[in-house]
């Protein structure tokens, strides 16, 4: 077996190895100790496996939930949750996802080095989610594996530069400078929130008052508890509306409250494992990426996860989250009237995207801007994924999809371009 064969049949065909290889290169480049290099490489591969295990568990519970929802409301309910859809997409397209991520990171560094767009996208989990979207999308449009890896890598690199750049139009005003940017694929949402909010700017030109740094209500901070409560309520409500006796016959005669508790722990448990896997997988790759970018991109602007904005206006973040979720419920009710496939607003995307959109809206347009922009943001955030679902049909009949707005927008744009070219 020659080197290229070995490379192709061994390294590229197994994503865990591919990701371990990326971590290994990163650790070598940073000149870590042999022990650290070994443990970092192993943990990256381990993290990938853990994510797969979690995806199985979360998926089993999700299919139970969608059966109950379908049985009660005669609709297909789809939950937007990036971690779960990514973990499921990697079951089929793991190798493409890993290569797209590697190509994307390298091209992103080149863009930052050579152009004035100095943003370095440091939210590794969002890179992973976008790679998963691009792999699923491009392979559905009849591109072959190599084309998918190349086109996917280019699109990933461009979106990693574009997302912080677009959100920066308004984020700059919140943080009062260019010292950092936001790395979350919801830039279209932030643009929308900022623009809508600017329509409500009062003429008095009063600066938004410096809000006292109060802490966010702790109720929403523990995301596993939030996912449990949300899944429990969804199950319980769907069960109440189900034809009498059907829950008992589906779940071995158990009372629906018991079923809801078991299923909610199952789903939250699966999500927790996915999250732990993603964390372990990225905790070597992201530092290496940052280490390299520090050296090759002078004057880089670090783009960080959206909660970085929360401390600039914590109350606006909570308000933005709740109103965004309310807007999502309106979108869900509308979809229920119109069609069979319905997006059920997810708590986690509304927390991260809705919260940050709330902070932006409050800084641009005060309280009135915050209310109007958040409601509209939530409405669009929950509506858009419905257009994405059909584009990802070759993933199978999944009851979960990508959440934040850029995923839907980029998905639709890329799909249109590829269809037009082919």
């Amino acid at each position, binding site marked *: 077996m020659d080197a290229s064969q070995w490379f192709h049949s061994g390294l590229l065909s197994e994503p865990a190895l591919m990701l371990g290889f990326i971590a290994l290169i990163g650790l070598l480049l940073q000149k870590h100790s042999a022990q650290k290099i070994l443990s970092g490489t192993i943990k990256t591969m381990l993290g990938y496996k853990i994510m797969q295990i979690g995806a199985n568990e979360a998926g089993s519970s999700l299919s139970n939930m969608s059966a109950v929802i379908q049985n009660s409301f005669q609709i297909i309910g789809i939950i937007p949750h990036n971690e779960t859809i990514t973990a499921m997409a990697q079951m089929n397209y793991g190798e493409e996802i890993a290569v797209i991520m590697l190509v994307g990171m390298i091209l992103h560094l080149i863009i930052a080095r050579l152009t004035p767009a100095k943003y370095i996208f*440091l*939210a*590794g*989990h969002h890179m992973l989610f976008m790679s998963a979207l691009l792999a699923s999308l491009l392979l559905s449009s009849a591109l072959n594996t190599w084309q998918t890896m190349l086109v996917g890598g280019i699109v990933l690199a461009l979106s990693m530069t574009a997302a912080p750049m677009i959100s920066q139009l308004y984020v700059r005003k919140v943080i009062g400078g260019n*010292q*950092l940017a936001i*790395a979350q694929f919801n830039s279209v949402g932030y643009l929308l929130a900022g623009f809508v909010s600017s329509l409500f700017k009062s003429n008095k030109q009063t600066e938004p008052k410096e809000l006292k*740094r109060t*802490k*966010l*209500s*702790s109720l929403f*901070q*523990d*995301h*596993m*508890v939030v996912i449990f409560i949300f899944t429990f309520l969804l199950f319980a409500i769907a069960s109440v509306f189900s034809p009498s006796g059907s829950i008992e016959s589906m779940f071995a005669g158990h009372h629906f409250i018991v079923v809801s508790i078991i299923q909610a722990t199952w789903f939250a448990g699966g999500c*927790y494992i996915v*999250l*732990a896997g*993603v*964390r372990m997988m*990225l*905790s070597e790759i*992201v*530092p290496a990426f*940052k280490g390299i970018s520090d050296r090759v991109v002078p004057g880089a602007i*670090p783009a*960080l*996860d959206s*909660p*970085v904005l*929360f*401390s600039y206006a*914590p109350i606006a*973040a909570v308000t933005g989250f709740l109103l965004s979720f309310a807007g999502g419920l309106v979108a869900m009710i509308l979809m229920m009237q119109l069609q069979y496939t319905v997006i059920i607003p997810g708590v*986690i995307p509304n*927390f*991260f995207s809705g919260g940050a959109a709330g902070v932006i809206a409050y800084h641009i347009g005060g309280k009135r801007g915050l209310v109007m922009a958040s409601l509209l943001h939530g409405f669009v955030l929950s509506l858009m994924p419905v257009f994405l679902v059909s584009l990802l049909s070759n993933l199978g009949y999944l009851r979960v999809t990508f959440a934040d707005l850029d995923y839907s927008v980029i998905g639709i744009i890329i799909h249109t371009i590829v269809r037009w070219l082919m």
Partner: protein
Amino acid sequence: MKQIIVACNSGLGTSLMIRLNIEALMRELGLEIAVEHTDVTSLKAHNAKLIVCSSYIMDSIEDTGDTEIIGLDDIMDRQYLKHELMRSKLFLKWISETE
């Protein structure tokens, strides 16, 4: 054990960035202190003595009495991070043990 635990909501983004910043600072100061990042849900299992997080999640971290919690308003500023760490009794004790 000299260990700092960094926490955020999902344990993916913010906490990792703070961890990298702390690790860089430890190298600068020549200190051998392990730094791990995690999510709010699993925080208790780490049995941490010194926790660093973004200030907006401070409320959700249970204060068990013998734990020091540092909430950062700015997660990227290393000088500010150093200033906040230097106010921690435990951290100062670790420094004095190293010298």
